[in-house]
């Protein structure tokens, strides 16, 4: 009996621990949702009963805080980065994995070396370069440097190891060009890997803060993260409206995570697969 009781007490402790952990993880999200319906004072005071101010907060977010503009800026930048990024990086990864040579192997290690480079060390000279190229305060300044990603090249190369080389030889005998093999055979048969890479690139661009903060000056070109941080700088802060904007800024990632959990996590875990 004592064994049975000890077993159930440890079970109970485990469940209490997990329950508390789960509540702590979810609570800020619930508080955020409630906050979108409250007036600014109630947000800070931590009223936990939904209010009636959601339409008002939404209006303030849209009209006073220019939410649609920031949202569209972020979306445009992220989508363009993903489109070119997935093509450029997976092409390179395919080249490194399937057309091996000593020179390419060396170039690959050279790329991987920059994975260890802290962002802050790159962005300062990069800022001067962008200034010389007259690209400061443009979305191109955000998009161009983030298309090539050593991590995505690494991730896709790992994945292409599973793509059988025999298929490529068979396709070549049938007269297929190398680009045809990549776009028409490799791409459709490895969709999940491409989706993972795309999600990863989308999120890192959607969430990126430091570099846009450095390069973007005008209000109408700001992305969501830098717009949100400058809202917090104001003398009076419409906390309810800020809650709406934070909520919207989390939404794409949340939807991607809940609908494509496997691909979402695969991208983040990619680095340990090897």
């Amino acid at each position, binding site marked *: 009996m004592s064994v049975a009781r000890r077993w159930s007490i440890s079970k109970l402790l485990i*469940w209490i621990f997990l329950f508390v952990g789960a509540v702590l993880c979810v609570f800020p999200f619930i508080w955020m949702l409630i906050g979108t319906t409250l007036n600014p004072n109630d947000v800070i005071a931590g009223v936990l009963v939904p209010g009636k101010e959601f339409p008002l907060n939404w209006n303030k977010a849209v009209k006073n805080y220019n939410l649609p503009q920031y949202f569209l800026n972020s979306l445009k930048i992220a989508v363009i980065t993903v489109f070119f990024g997935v093509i450029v990086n997976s092409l390179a990864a395919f080249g490194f994995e399937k057309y091996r040579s000593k020179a390419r192997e060396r170039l690959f290690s050279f790329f991987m070396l920059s994975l260890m480079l802290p962002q802050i060390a790159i962005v300062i*000279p990069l800022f001067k370069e962008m200034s010389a190229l007259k690209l400061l305060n443009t979305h191109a300044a955000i998009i161009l440097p983030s298309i090539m990603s050593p991590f995505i090249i690494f991730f896709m190369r790992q994945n292409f190891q599973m793509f059988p080389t025999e298929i490529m030889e068979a396709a070549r005998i049938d007269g297929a060009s190398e680009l045809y093999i990549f776009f028409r055979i490799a791409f459709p048969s490895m969709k999940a890997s491409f989706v993972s890479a795309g999600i990863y690139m989308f999120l890192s661009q959607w969430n990126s803060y430091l570099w846009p903060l450095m390069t973007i000056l005008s209000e109408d070109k700001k992305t969501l993260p830098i717009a949100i941080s400058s809202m917090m700088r104001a003398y009076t802060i419409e906390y309810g409206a800020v809650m709406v904007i934070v909520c919207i800024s989390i939404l794409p990632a949340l939807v991607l995570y809940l609908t494509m959990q496997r691909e979402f996590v695969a991208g983040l875990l990619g680095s340990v697969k090897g």
Partner: protein
Amino acid sequence: MVTPATILYMIFTFYPILKSLTMVTQKWQGLRSTYIGLGNFTRMMQDKVFWQALGNNFLFMAIQIPIMIMLALILAVMLNQGIKRGRGVLRTIFFLPCVTSLIAYSVLFRMLFQTNGLLNNILINLNIINAPIGWLNDPFWAKATIIIALTWRWTGYNMVFFLVGLQNINSEIYEAAEVDGANKIQQFFKVTLPLLRPVILFSVVTSISGTMQLIDEPNVLTWEGGPANATMTAALYIYRQAFVLNSDFGYATALSYVIVLISGLFALIQMKTLGRRDE
């Protein structure tokens, strides 16, 4: 096929690195620059705030990473072996904080941790504290706030790594341990922990590199590294040297070399430990 990536790499990564080699020897004032040799490095030696900031990075590492890794390990083991139902749902929930952008959760936590805010209200109502804590105004509590926030954001992330690691452990090992009379706690220390060592090391190294580059949270959550530089980090200080305070890009470059050096050292350790994994 590797050409487009190589061209982009040359323009936006390699060229800036080369350019930084000349920038580091210059003093910038607005758009003018003058050659000062190693002047930036001698100036750095006397820059108390920079060393304080770097000290903060190490403090966050030393305290936050062990707490987070331990919590992530406990959660992973509990999900893997402690329960039979609800595993999928709980995994989804614990990973949820990782979908928030660093700025979104920093803003959220900034509101939550106000002195007259929700967290203090809850703690007072539960009789845990008598008077509100100045989470964002007191140097000690501001550091604690950053540590709590980082732990909230990243524990689930590391937990997922550990879960994958745990699933790769053959269950026969546990059966053998049970036959030998090892209880659950002994099994954890003698079987689970040694077999997870490579994954744990990987997590630690990734976390160290992340903490070394910490910038979003101290800039937004505790506001510009405040109070009184209590949460200033090296990366944030460098950013402020170049963009907020003096626009001295030469000095900022010199400071960033220190971070490169430290990250390089950690990377070396990483290669050594990951190399051991392959053996």
